[in-house]
Protein backbone atom coordinates (compact mmCIF):
# COMPACT_ATOMS: atom_id res chain seq x y z
CA UNK A 1 0.00 0.00 0.00
CA UNK A 2 2.81 2.38 0.81
CA UNK A 3 4.48 1.83 -2.56
CA UNK A 4 1.18 2.46 -4.34
CA UNK A 5 0.71 5.70 -2.43
CA UNK A 6 4.18 6.85 -3.37
CA UNK A 7 3.62 6.04 -7.01
CA UNK A 8 0.27 7.78 -7.13
CA UNK A 9 1.61 10.81 -5.34
CA UNK A 10 4.37 11.17 -7.89
CA UNK A 11 2.16 10.70 -10.92
CA UNK A 12 -0.99 12.42 -9.60
CA UNK A 13 -0.53 16.16 -8.86
CA UNK A 14 -3.75 16.34 -6.73
CA UNK A 15 -2.33 14.22 -3.91
CA UNK A 16 -0.30 16.44 -1.62
CA UNK A 17 3.24 15.43 -0.88
CA UNK A 18 2.66 15.72 2.89
CA UNK A 19 0.81 12.37 2.75
CA UNK A 20 4.14 10.73 1.98
CA UNK A 21 6.79 9.69 4.49
CA UNK A 22 9.90 11.93 4.53
CA UNK A 23 12.22 11.72 1.53
CA UNK A 24 15.03 9.82 3.23
CA UNK A 25 12.63 6.94 4.03
CA UNK A 26 11.33 6.67 0.51
CA UNK A 27 12.73 3.94 -1.69
CA UNK A 28 15.56 4.99 -4.02
CA UNK A 29 13.38 5.00 -7.13
CA UNK A 30 10.97 7.49 -5.55
CA UNK A 31 13.79 9.70 -4.41
CA UNK A 32 15.11 9.82 -7.93
CA UNK A 33 11.66 10.70 -9.22
CA UNK A 34 11.20 13.47 -6.69
CA UNK A 35 14.48 15.24 -7.15
CA UNK A 36 15.76 16.46 -10.44
CA UNK A 37 19.45 15.82 -10.87
CA UNK A 38 21.21 19.13 -10.91
CA UNK A 39 24.15 19.48 -13.20
CA UNK A 40 25.42 22.35 -15.27
CA UNK A 41 25.93 21.60 -18.90
CA UNK A 42 28.89 23.40 -20.37
CA UNK A 43 28.23 24.48 -23.93
CA UNK A 44 30.11 22.29 -26.37
CA UNK A 45 32.78 23.77 -28.56
CA UNK A 46 30.66 23.35 -31.70
CA UNK A 47 27.84 25.49 -30.27
CA UNK A 48 27.03 28.39 -32.52
CA UNK A 49 27.23 31.95 -31.24
CA UNK A 50 23.59 32.52 -32.21
CA UNK A 51 22.36 29.71 -30.00
CA UNK A 52 23.81 31.23 -26.85
CA UNK A 53 21.51 33.94 -25.54
CA UNK A 54 23.96 36.69 -24.83
CA UNK A 55 23.30 40.10 -23.41
CA UNK A 56 26.53 41.49 -24.84
CA UNK A 57 26.91 40.32 -28.40
CA UNK A 58 30.36 41.86 -28.71
CA UNK A 59 31.74 39.89 -25.78
CA UNK A 60 30.51 36.60 -27.17
CA UNK A 61 31.85 37.45 -30.60
CA UNK A 62 35.29 38.08 -29.07
CA UNK A 63 35.24 34.87 -27.07
CA UNK A 64 34.16 32.57 -29.89
CA UNK A 65 36.59 33.75 -32.57
CA UNK A 66 37.96 30.64 -34.19
CA UNK A 67 41.74 30.56 -34.23
CA UNK A 68 42.90 31.35 -37.75
CA UNK A 69 46.14 30.13 -39.19
CA UNK A 70 48.77 32.47 -40.62
CA UNK A 71 47.17 34.95 -43.08
CA UNK A 72 47.01 33.83 -46.73
CA UNK A 73 49.80 35.55 -48.60
CA UNK A 74 48.96 37.24 -51.87
CA UNK A 75 51.04 37.91 -54.94
CA UNK A 76 52.52 41.43 -54.97
CA UNK A 77 50.30 44.01 -56.70
CA UNK A 78 51.44 46.39 -59.43
CA UNK A 79 53.83 49.00 -58.01
CA UNK A 80 53.42 52.74 -58.49
CA UNK A 81 54.86 53.91 -61.81
CA UNK A 82 58.37 55.35 -61.61
CA UNK A 83 58.51 59.12 -61.84
CA UNK A 84 62.27 59.78 -61.92
CA UNK A 85 63.41 60.44 -65.50
CA UNK A 86 65.22 57.67 -67.25
CA UNK A 87 68.99 58.26 -67.28
CA UNK A 88 70.27 56.65 -70.45
CA UNK A 89 73.98 56.29 -71.12
CA UNK A 90 75.35 57.35 -74.51
CA UNK A 91 76.49 53.81 -75.25
CA UNK A 92 72.98 52.58 -74.53
CA UNK A 93 71.49 55.16 -76.88
CA UNK A 94 73.90 54.06 -79.54
CA UNK A 95 73.55 50.30 -79.24
CA UNK A 96 70.07 49.66 -77.89
CA UNK A 97 68.55 49.76 -81.37
CA UNK A 98 71.18 47.27 -82.52
CA UNK A 99 70.36 44.98 -79.62
CA UNK A 100 66.65 45.28 -80.21
CA UNK A 101 66.97 44.35 -83.87
CA UNK A 102 68.75 41.03 -83.14
CA UNK A 103 66.61 37.93 -83.62
CA UNK A 104 66.75 36.37 -80.17
CA UNK A 105 67.45 37.68 -76.65
CA UNK A 106 68.08 36.35 -73.19
CA UNK A 107 67.43 38.02 -69.90
CA UNK A 108 68.70 37.48 -66.35
CA UNK A 109 65.59 38.06 -64.25
CA UNK A 110 65.84 38.19 -60.46
CA UNK A 111 63.00 36.68 -58.46
CA UNK A 112 63.41 37.27 -54.73
CA UNK A 113 67.02 38.17 -55.42
CA UNK A 114 67.89 34.93 -57.24
CA UNK A 115 68.87 35.15 -60.93
CA UNK A 116 67.28 33.06 -63.68
CA UNK A 117 68.79 33.15 -67.16
CA UNK A 118 65.82 32.74 -69.49
CA UNK A 119 64.58 33.44 -72.95
CA UNK A 120 61.12 33.46 -74.48
CA UNK A 121 59.43 30.09 -74.32
CA UNK A 122 61.44 28.78 -71.36
CA UNK A 123 59.79 26.87 -68.59
CA UNK A 124 61.18 27.73 -65.14
CA UNK A 125 60.57 25.57 -62.08
CA UNK A 126 61.08 27.94 -59.14
CA UNK A 127 62.68 26.44 -56.03
CA UNK A 128 59.73 27.55 -53.92
CA UNK A 129 55.94 27.62 -53.94
CA UNK A 130 54.69 31.07 -54.91
CA UNK A 131 51.70 31.95 -52.72
CA UNK A 132 48.59 33.67 -54.04
CA UNK A 133 48.87 32.64 -57.72
CA UNK A 134 46.86 30.14 -59.73
CA UNK A 135 47.60 28.65 -63.15
CA UNK A 136 46.83 31.27 -65.78
CA UNK A 137 48.05 34.30 -63.83
CA UNK A 138 50.33 36.56 -65.79
CA UNK A 139 53.29 37.96 -63.88
CA UNK A 140 55.41 40.85 -65.02
CA UNK A 141 59.04 40.36 -64.08
CA UNK A 142 60.64 43.73 -63.47
CA UNK A 143 64.05 43.05 -61.97
CA UNK A 144 66.73 42.10 -64.44
CA UNK A 145 70.47 42.34 -64.13
CA UNK A 146 71.39 41.77 -67.75
CA UNK A 147 69.71 41.59 -71.09
CA UNK A 148 71.53 40.39 -74.15
CA UNK A 149 71.71 38.68 -77.46
CA UNK A 150 74.42 36.94 -79.45
CA UNK A 151 76.49 40.07 -80.03
CA UNK A 152 75.43 42.63 -77.42
CA UNK A 153 74.76 42.64 -73.68
CA UNK A 154 73.11 45.35 -71.64
CA UNK A 155 74.21 45.16 -68.00
CA UNK A 156 72.56 46.95 -65.13
CA UNK A 157 74.22 48.25 -61.95
CA UNK A 158 72.98 46.24 -60.18
CA UNK A 159 69.62 46.09 -61.97
CA UNK A 160 68.40 47.45 -65.29
CA UNK A 161 65.80 50.15 -65.50
CA UNK A 162 62.50 48.33 -65.83
CA UNK A 163 61.19 50.74 -68.42
CA UNK A 164 63.67 49.44 -70.99
CA UNK A 165 62.27 45.93 -71.28
CA UNK A 166 59.10 43.93 -70.83
CA UNK A 167 59.25 40.40 -69.52
CA UNK A 168 56.11 38.43 -68.81
CA UNK A 169 55.63 34.97 -67.40
CA UNK A 170 52.55 32.81 -67.04
CA UNK A 171 52.03 30.53 -64.10
CA UNK A 172 51.52 27.07 -65.59
CA UNK A 173 51.03 25.16 -62.38
CA UNK A 174 52.57 23.55 -59.35
CA UNK A 175 54.85 20.57 -59.21
CA UNK A 176 55.68 18.42 -56.24
CA UNK A 177 58.90 16.59 -55.51
CA UNK A 178 58.80 12.86 -54.87
CA UNK A 179 58.07 12.04 -51.25
CA UNK A 180 61.24 11.90 -49.24
CA UNK A 181 61.54 10.34 -45.83
CA UNK A 182 64.09 11.53 -43.30
CA UNK A 183 64.81 9.13 -40.45
CA UNK A 184 66.38 10.55 -37.32
CA UNK A 185 67.60 8.44 -34.50
CA UNK A 186 69.83 8.68 -31.45
CA UNK A 187 72.74 6.37 -30.93
CA UNK A 188 72.01 3.17 -28.98
CA UNK A 189 68.27 3.89 -29.13
CA UNK A 190 66.02 1.87 -31.39
CA UNK A 191 63.27 4.47 -31.79
CA UNK A 192 63.41 5.92 -35.29
CA UNK A 193 61.62 9.22 -35.85
CA UNK A 194 60.34 9.65 -39.39
CA UNK A 195 59.73 12.99 -41.11
CA UNK A 196 58.04 13.00 -44.48
CA UNK A 197 58.56 15.88 -46.92
CA UNK A 198 56.88 16.61 -50.19
CA UNK A 199 57.47 20.19 -51.17
CA UNK A 200 55.59 22.08 -53.86
CA UNK A 201 57.23 24.20 -56.55
CA UNK A 202 55.66 26.77 -58.86
CA UNK A 203 56.32 26.47 -62.59
CA UNK A 204 56.37 29.53 -64.84
CA UNK A 205 56.55 29.82 -68.57
CA UNK A 206 58.31 32.91 -69.89
CA UNK A 207 55.85 34.14 -72.47
CA UNK A 208 57.52 37.37 -73.56
CA UNK A 209 60.96 38.99 -73.57
CA UNK A 210 60.79 42.31 -75.36
CA UNK A 211 63.20 45.22 -75.58
CA UNK A 212 61.63 48.58 -76.09
CA UNK A 213 62.79 51.04 -78.70
CA UNK A 214 64.22 54.38 -77.67
CA UNK A 215 61.09 56.19 -78.93
CA UNK A 216 58.88 54.05 -76.70
CA UNK A 217 61.04 54.79 -73.66
CA UNK A 218 60.84 58.49 -74.39
CA UNK A 219 64.39 59.21 -75.49
CA UNK A 220 64.92 60.94 -78.84
Amino acid at each position, binding site marked *: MLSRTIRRSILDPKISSSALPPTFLLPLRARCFNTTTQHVETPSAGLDASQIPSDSVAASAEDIIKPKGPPRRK*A*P*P*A*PAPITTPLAVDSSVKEMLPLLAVQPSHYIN*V*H*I*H*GKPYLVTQGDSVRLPFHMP*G*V*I*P*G*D*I*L*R*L*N*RASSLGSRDYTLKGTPYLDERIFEC*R*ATVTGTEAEPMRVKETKKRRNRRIHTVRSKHKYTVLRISEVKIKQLEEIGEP
Partner: protein
Amino acid sequence: MSFFRITLVRSGIGLTKRTQGVLKALGLRHRMTTVFYPVTSEVAGQIMKVKELVEVQEVDKPLTRAELRAERRPDPGFYLERPAPR
Protein backbone atom coordinates in the same frame (compact mmCIF):
# COMPACT_ATOMS: atom_id res chain seq x y z
CA MET B 1 68.14 61.37 -29.15
CA SER B 2 70.53 59.64 -31.49
CA PHE B 3 71.41 55.99 -31.48
CA PHE B 4 74.38 53.82 -32.27
CA ARG B 5 73.60 51.22 -34.91
CA ILE B 6 76.07 48.44 -34.08
CA THR B 7 76.60 45.47 -36.43
CA LEU B 8 78.88 42.56 -35.58
CA VAL B 9 81.03 42.00 -38.62
CA ARG B 10 83.73 39.71 -37.23
CA SER B 11 82.98 36.83 -34.93
CA GLY B 12 84.11 36.65 -31.32
CA ILE B 13 85.02 32.95 -31.50
CA GLY B 14 88.44 32.32 -30.06
CA LEU B 15 88.61 35.65 -28.29
CA THR B 16 88.95 36.23 -24.57
CA LYS B 17 86.04 35.75 -22.20
CA ARG B 18 86.16 39.47 -21.46
CA THR B 19 85.64 40.37 -25.11
CA GLN B 20 82.97 37.72 -25.55
CA GLY B 21 81.32 39.10 -22.43
CA VAL B 22 81.17 42.55 -23.97
CA LEU B 23 79.55 41.12 -27.09
CA LYS B 24 77.04 39.28 -24.94
CA ALA B 25 76.27 42.45 -23.00
CA LEU B 26 75.64 44.30 -26.25
CA GLY B 27 73.37 41.49 -27.46
CA LEU B 28 75.50 40.66 -30.48
CA ARG B 29 74.90 36.94 -30.80
CA HIS B 30 76.29 36.10 -34.20
CA ARG B 31 77.73 37.80 -37.26
CA MET B 32 75.64 40.48 -38.94
CA THR B 33 73.44 40.94 -35.88
CA THR B 34 72.44 44.59 -35.58
CA VAL B 35 71.53 46.30 -32.33
CA PHE B 36 70.60 49.85 -31.40
CA TYR B 37 71.71 51.67 -28.27
CA PRO B 38 71.35 55.30 -27.28
CA VAL B 39 74.50 57.35 -27.52
CA THR B 40 76.00 57.35 -24.03
CA SER B 41 79.52 57.12 -22.69
CA GLU B 42 78.89 53.62 -21.30
CA VAL B 43 77.88 52.22 -24.66
CA ALA B 44 80.73 54.08 -26.32
CA GLY B 45 83.14 52.36 -23.92
CA GLN B 46 81.68 48.95 -24.74
CA ILE B 47 82.10 49.67 -28.44
CA MET B 48 85.73 50.70 -27.86
CA LYS B 49 86.38 47.30 -26.27
CA VAL B 50 85.20 45.48 -29.41
CA LYS B 51 85.88 48.15 -32.01
CA GLU B 52 87.78 45.77 -34.31
CA LEU B 53 84.82 43.43 -34.63
CA VAL B 54 82.06 45.89 -35.09
CA GLU B 55 80.72 48.50 -37.53
CA VAL B 56 78.98 51.50 -36.02
CA GLN B 57 76.78 54.21 -37.47
CA GLU B 58 74.89 56.97 -35.77
CA VAL B 59 71.18 57.07 -36.61
CA ASP B 60 68.16 59.01 -35.45
CA LYS B 61 65.80 56.24 -34.56
CA PRO B 62 66.20 52.55 -33.76
CA LEU B 63 64.68 50.03 -36.14
CA THR B 64 62.50 47.17 -34.95
CA ARG B 65 63.22 43.54 -35.81
CA ALA B 66 60.60 43.61 -38.52
CA GLU B 67 62.10 46.73 -40.06
CA LEU B 68 65.58 45.20 -40.01
CA ARG B 69 64.31 42.09 -41.76
CA ALA B 70 62.50 44.21 -44.33
CA GLU B 71 65.79 45.98 -45.03
CA ARG B 72 67.55 42.74 -45.83
CA ARG B 73 64.70 41.22 -47.83
CA PRO B 74 65.24 41.59 -51.60
CA ASP B 75 62.33 42.95 -53.56
CA PRO B 76 60.22 40.23 -55.18
CA GLY B 77 61.13 41.13 -58.74
CA PHE B 78 57.67 40.41 -60.11
CA TYR B 79 54.08 41.52 -59.72
CA LEU B 80 50.73 40.13 -60.70
CA GLU B 81 49.83 41.96 -63.88
CA ARG B 82 46.76 40.10 -65.02
CA PRO B 83 45.19 37.59 -62.64
CA ALA B 84 43.29 34.68 -64.09
CA PRO B 85 39.56 34.61 -63.20
CA ARG B 86 39.09 32.97 -59.82
